[in-house]
């Protein structure tokens, strides 16, 4: 093992060093501030690449660091971080999106550049920390810390209804996460594990009634973040009002917190409750897919349309994850990455035209393809990827999800959800048609400039990824698979263990060697 020590901490806290440097910079020298943020995010990205090369394809948590942190009264919290195949790609996605997000604000944000960059970098710390935490208390800290910079990003640099959107975003998320905190502490006392180590909690067998309540509390927090129907109403507001980089990060990474929370915490910790609530979650996911698609269809604002498409996409992810089989979960995980790439790209594209025209209404556009051919090409590729055209990344994820869900108990849900694929083609292509094709009759649009070098530089890595992940997704899935297997296994072994435990309780003499190991960690 030649893993670099403390690599995860270095990656997570590099942006924090950037924040400290930024605080000492002259606030009027915008290009230096932007350049510094860019360099810091790029360094973070480069530093995260050894994670991919050094990652051993197995189910273990790797790059683990553990330092005692808080010890007081009944509590023991550790700074305990590590990644497995599930979090690996989300960490990489985060470090990959951040430089793009910074680059996209180069001309979009002219006011309070310093504060903006500080917020972006703090957000990166929070997101990375949440993905790598293996201590539930630590996870909660990062989970909450993320809220603050995002609140300011929406509230300070947002659109007309920014305050409404920012406060709504904050309160919605806060309610969910505080209930999760209650459940977390309750779980701690119930488990009696002595610390907040996630791996210890995995081994605890809880009775179904407790699981139900705890699952509900965790699921509420995560479902708000995903967001699942009917808790999604903050998302269109937040997306529409947020500045471009905020929307990109929100869509590409923050929403993944919710689905990641289900995969990492809610499902393996409470397997019986997961089984019990699968029909409910699947129903909400399918309603989300269809409803969001229908609502997206009638949107007049491109950004809002993309926001609703996010709700639909995340509905697919939830469906796949709750299929609880290899294809479904792998598809869900892959779709999380895909959604990050393609919806991130879509928000960037919306940002490009908004910067030029300061409107996002579909009716203000038309025939742009003649005026902006490069833009049209880029937009087309991203649109097709979002729809899930074979050859692009979107197809692989959606296909795996539908396959997995169809093979599971969720067969009929899948049948209905599949119509969402068609609907997504309808609203995306219809929007594309109205914006890009037709007569270029609005005089304001006749002078539009095509993408410049910076904008192309932003889009090129995303487009490359769209094709790479579409044509050759194997390396991504291969690294995930052991972790996904373990996550599925965890639920099943635990149920079996609980049944085994009940038998000797009834017939103690029949099984003198009671108390089997609750769980064999692979």
């Amino acid at each position: 093992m030649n893993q670099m020590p403390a690599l995860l901490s270095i990656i997570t806290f590099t942006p924090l060093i950037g924040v400290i440097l930024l605080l000492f910079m002259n606030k009027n020298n915008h290009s230096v501030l932007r350049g510094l943020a860019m360099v810091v995010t790029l360094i973070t990205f480069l530093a995260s690449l050894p994670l991919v090369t050094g990652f051993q394809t197995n189910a273990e948590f790797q790059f683990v660091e553990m330092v005692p942190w808080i010890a007081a009264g009944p509590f023991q919290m550790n700074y305990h971080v590590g990644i497995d195949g599930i979090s690996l790609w989300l960490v990489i996605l985060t470090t990959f999106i951040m430089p793009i997000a910074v680059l996209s604000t180069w001309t979009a944000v002219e006011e309070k550049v310093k504060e903006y960059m500080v917020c972006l970098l703090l957000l990166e710390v929070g997101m990375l920390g949440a993905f790598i935490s293996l201590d539930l208390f630590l996870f909660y800290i990062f989970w909450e810390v993320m809220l603050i910079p995002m609140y300011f990003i929406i509230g300070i640099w947002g659109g007309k209804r920014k305050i409404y959107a920012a406060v709504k975003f904050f309160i919605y998320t806060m309610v969910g996460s505080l209930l999760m905190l209650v459940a977390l502490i309750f779980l701690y006392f119930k488990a009696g594990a002595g610390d907040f180590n996630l791996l210890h909690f995995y081994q605890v067998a809880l009775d179904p009634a407790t699981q139900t309540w705890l699952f509900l509390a965790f699921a509420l927090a995560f479902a708000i973040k995903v967001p699942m129907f009917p808790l999604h109403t903050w998302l269109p507001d937040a997306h529409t009002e947020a500045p471009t980089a905020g929307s990109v990060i929100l869509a590409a990474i923050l929403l993944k917190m919710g689905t990641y929370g289900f995969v990492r915490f809610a499902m393996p910790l409470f397997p019986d409750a997961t089984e019990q609530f699968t029909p409910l979650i699947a129903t909400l996911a399918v309603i989300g897919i269809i409803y969001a698609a229908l609502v997206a269809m009638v949107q007049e604002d491109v950004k809002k349309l993309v926001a609703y498409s996010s709700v639909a996409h995340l509905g697919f992810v939830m469906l796949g994850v709750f299929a609880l089989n290899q294809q479904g979960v792998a598809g869900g995980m892959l779709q999380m990455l895909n959604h990050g790439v393609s919806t991130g790209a879509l928000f960037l594209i919306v940002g490009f035209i908004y910067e030029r025209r300061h409107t996002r209404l579909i009716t203000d556009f038309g025939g742009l393809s003649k005026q902006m051919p490069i833009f049209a090409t880029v937009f087309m590729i991203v649109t097709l990827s979002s729809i899930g055209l074979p050859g692009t990344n979107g197809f692989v994820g959606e296909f795996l999800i539908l396959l997995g869900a169809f093979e599971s108990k969720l067969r009929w849900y899948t049948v209905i959800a599949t119509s969402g694929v068609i609907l997504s083609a309808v609203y995306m292509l219809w929007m594309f048609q109205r914006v890009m094709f037709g007569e270029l009759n609005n005089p304001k649009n006749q002078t539009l400039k095509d993408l410049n070098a910076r904008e192309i530089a932003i889009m090129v890595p995303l487009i490359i990824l769209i094709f790479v992940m579409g044509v050759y997704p194997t390396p991504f899935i291969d690294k995930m698979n052991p972790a996904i297997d373990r996550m599925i296994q965890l639920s099943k072994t635990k149920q079996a263990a609980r049944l085994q435990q009940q038998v000797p309780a009834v017939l103690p003499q029949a099984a003198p060697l009671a108390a089997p190991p609750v769980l064999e960690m692979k």
Partner: protein
Amino acid sequence: METLVMPAINFAAIMPETILSIVAMVLLLLNVFVPGEQKAYLAYLSFIGIVVAFFSVVSGWNAPLALQEGFNGSVLQDNFSLFFKAIFLVSAGLAVLISDHYMAKEECNHGELYPLILFATAGMMLMASGTDLMTIFLGLEVLSVSLYVLAGFNRSDIKSNEAGLKYFLLGAFSTGFLLYGMALTYGATGTTKIAKIAAAAAMDGALANNPMFVVGMLLMAVGFSFKIAAAPFHMWTPDVYEGAPTPMTAFMSAGPKAAGFAAFIRVLVVAMPTLKADWSDLLWILAVLTMTVGNIIALSQNNIKRMLAYSSIAHAGYALVGFTAGNGEGTAGILFYMLSYAFMNIGAFAIIILVGKKGEPNNNVEDYAGFGVKHPVLAMVLALFLFSLAGMPPTAGFVGKFYLFSAALKSGYVWLVVIGVLNSAASVYYYLRVMVYMYMKDPVEEFDWMKLSPAVLLSITISVVGVIVPGVVPSIILQLAQKAILL
């Protein structure tokens, strides 16, 4: 004929009180004999006195029992009271540092302010270390009388007058309840010593059903609830907090509230464990009412001082959640929370003082429009305090709330905690509202009148450290708090 036995006096047990009282009296004399309008030297001298008292508190930590006990068992300077004394000194110290600037600005810079703060602090200390109902009452009166004057200190301001008078009338009223409760307890048990009350109750099982004893407990609870501003005994708080000079509001919201908790905890936990079933139900109701009333009314406040007044009611409610838990973590949580609350609340008030100017207190939320643009650092610090009050990690406010709520969960009060966190979520709205104005609205004012005096800067710095350090590495203070519990 019995020989007269002199009670063991043991000044070591009241060393911090003694130091503060002597400093206060010296300052009173200095104020008379040193002419001049500049009273800043009094602030610095009292700060030095507070620091000296703080060292005596630190040196008393873990002292042998013989040194803790004094005055024939009327005073016990145990770790519990020492931790509280540290909290009082922190709030007094911070309040003293922010006073001179404000009082000079409001042109009511009378030197008596500082001795009164010190006397009040000495009174709080007696409340925390009193092990006789009489000592607790004496401490409470020393505290209250000083506070009545401090609340009405700005003689030329009609609102300050109103605050003083209102506080005096309602305070006197609540003292009546407290005394009546103490009298009934004495009647039921024949003693005012806390340890002997507990012994009497333990000896005589029927005492738990004796109406005199139970009603005595209830009336004392009412009296203490007035002091900690628990709903429905909170009515005086908003008017007094709004009218009092801002540094005194800051002081009152942190120190005396903690003192009320100290005495409340000692009386219920040590003297009346046999009535635990009764008082934990009572505290449950008080906690829910206090949190909910405080937060809901705070939501609609436009005046930031009133908003913080109602929020301080809500914070007393969170502390009551820990009290309801009735376990060691709950008490430790209250200790930690009261300390954090002193830092974050007085810190917030320090900045509120800076934003105000003579004649224009600028206490409405709208007055903060664009503050973040004009004074980014101060606004960031205020935002930090507000986030801490809202309970966001990584601040002391979060750790404190976490500890209080987990104590209640440990004792099985799940619904109480759920109500608590929902309240906490609602409270976020009004703290965010200030930030909305600071950062998301365009500036109306230039805020060019603000100047940072060294004393205010020092108090803000101490507060920032006191909010961040226990938030990131809470172990040390939490462990100290765990050692200071009574159970």
